[in-house]
């Protein structure tokens, strides 16, 4: 399916409790690091079931192992124990599935490539011919409102624009699972809200399966169908919250609703217990 065809798909107005097939399943997922001869358990026996088309946030205090979980799923680091399956098939470290798209917190635009060539990087790697590459890249650039900056180098762009480039570089590959590690963590509040709007706009049309790592509760509530709360280190599953605000959502007006306030304070208390453990 191309970008254009996907745009025609009609999204349901609201998302009922997701009963689709499980796409990512983790069982007993653990990770130990060795630092200066001492063992440190970063992630402790985490079980996850992420269903097709679900937007799930992994929420927890800094250092609780969120990135570690995500990176094990992505295949960037091996698990110490436990299993991960993608569509029922085991995933191992070092094997990167083309179904997965990944967005880093850190700026990962390639400084010597223009915006256009950054967005088209994955397509270029895959050997997609220039004509269809240009077409898909242009669509992505329009969608992210980066038009006019096609030939700019990342060094000339703001942090928010660079992160949009990274996001579109992942999305232009049409991954049906999107892994995002605090992708907007380094942005100011206003830019962040812009990014939420863009992401919601895209997701509501295409319904990728998303695992979104964040320590920002407002962000998790704005975007997700479900919030998985991890405990302070070692990261364990603490609690799960269903976020059933109707969709499509508006990143700003959502925050003024009573349901939002109610759920916010519920998750906040639970998150607060974990925060206090790390002295944050």
């Amino acid at each position: 399916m191309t970008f254009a065809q996907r745009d025609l798909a009609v999204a349901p107005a609201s998302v009922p409790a997701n009963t689709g097939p499980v796409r990512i399943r983790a069982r007993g997922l653990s990770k130990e690091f060795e630092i200066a001869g001492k063992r440190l358990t970063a992630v402790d026996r985490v079980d996850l079931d992420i269903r097709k088309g679900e937007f799930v946030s992994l929420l927890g205090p800094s250092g609780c192992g969120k990135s570690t979980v995500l990176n094990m799923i992505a295949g960037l680091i091996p698990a110490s124990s436990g299993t991960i399956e993608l569509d029922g098939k085991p995933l191992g470290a070092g094997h990167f599935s083309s179904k997965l798209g990944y967005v880093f917190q850190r700026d990962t635009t390639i400084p010597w490539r223009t915006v256009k060539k950054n967005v088209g990087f994955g397509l270029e790697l895959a050997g997609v011919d220039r004509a269809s590459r240009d077409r898909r890249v242009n669509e992505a650039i329009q969608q992210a409102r980066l038009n006019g900056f096609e030939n700019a180098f990342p060094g000339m762009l703001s942090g928010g624009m660079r992160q949009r480039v990274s996001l579109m570089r992942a999305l232009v590959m049409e991954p049906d699972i999107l892994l995002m590690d605090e992708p907007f963590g380094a942005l100011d509040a206003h830019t962040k809200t812009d990014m939420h709007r863009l992401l919601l706009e895209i997701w509501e049309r295409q319904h990728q399966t998303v695992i979104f790592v964040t320590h920002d509760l407002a962000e998790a509530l704005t975007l997700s169908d479900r919030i998985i709360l991890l405990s302070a280190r070692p990261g364990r599953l603490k609690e799960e919250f269903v976020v059933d605000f109707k969709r499509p959502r508006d990143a700003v007006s959502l925050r003024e609703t009573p349901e939002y306030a109610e759920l916010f304070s519920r998750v906040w208390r639970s998150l607060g217990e974990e925060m206090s453990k790390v002295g944050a």
Partner: protein
Amino acid sequence: MMGSRATVVAAQLAIILLTLAVWQWAFDLKPYADWLVPGLLDPYFISKPSEIWTQLLRLACLTNPTGDWLLGQDGAVMACLAQNDNNLWIATLVTLTNTLWGFAIGVASGYIVGLLLGQSTFLSRVFEPFLVALNSIPRIALVPIVVMMFGIGDTSKIVTAWLLVFFLVFFNTFEGARQVDQTLVSMSRLLQAKDWQVTSKIIIPSTLTWVFASLTPAISFALIGVIVGEFIGARQGLGRIMMEAQARGQSSVMMATVIVLMTIGVILALGVKSMQTYLLRWQNTGH
């Protein structure tokens, strides 16, 4: 305005004129004010601008030894050039060609070895002590050996230039290869990049920035290498002209050669610089 472009240029012109004037006339004042004029200004050592200019025209076969123009006369320039197989033009060409070869070979080999060692922890650990030891040799000390090994022709000059350029570029590339942003590598792998694609699209471009930074010193090193090689033993080249002139005490010839060398050095450095600016244009952030 003190900082305006015109003032700066005016000040620079003044410095040039003053230098030329002192160079040309100061020693003439020695009989009147001995205490004012240092002995090193003696034209016996440093010649005079007017003599250097005359000498340049003569060496270039534009005038004959008595100062008459050869340019207008049929075949006179050619006849003058034919008398000397190391005339200024041939010598410049020989020195320049050897410099460029030494530079090219040094950059290419330094880059390749730097990239290989920088990417392999095993190789870099094996070779590191050797490279550090080799790098500690003042390379110029090897020139007599190089000339003995490769003879007094072009090869020994190219090898000398190579010796100087190789290590410079090698260490830069090596450092660059170790500082490649690993997140960019992960990002590429997540986008299904194959090993060779990671190398060609991430590692090579990011090490190239380090290499470009070393190109300006590298071209100067190459020129130094060639000249020193020519001092030790050569049939042709500007260094050879210098050595002959020194043996005969012809300071004007030595100075004329230095002027030519300076011109070559400036042109080469500017060429490399503009190439570098173009290739690294993405580093210009516009902020």
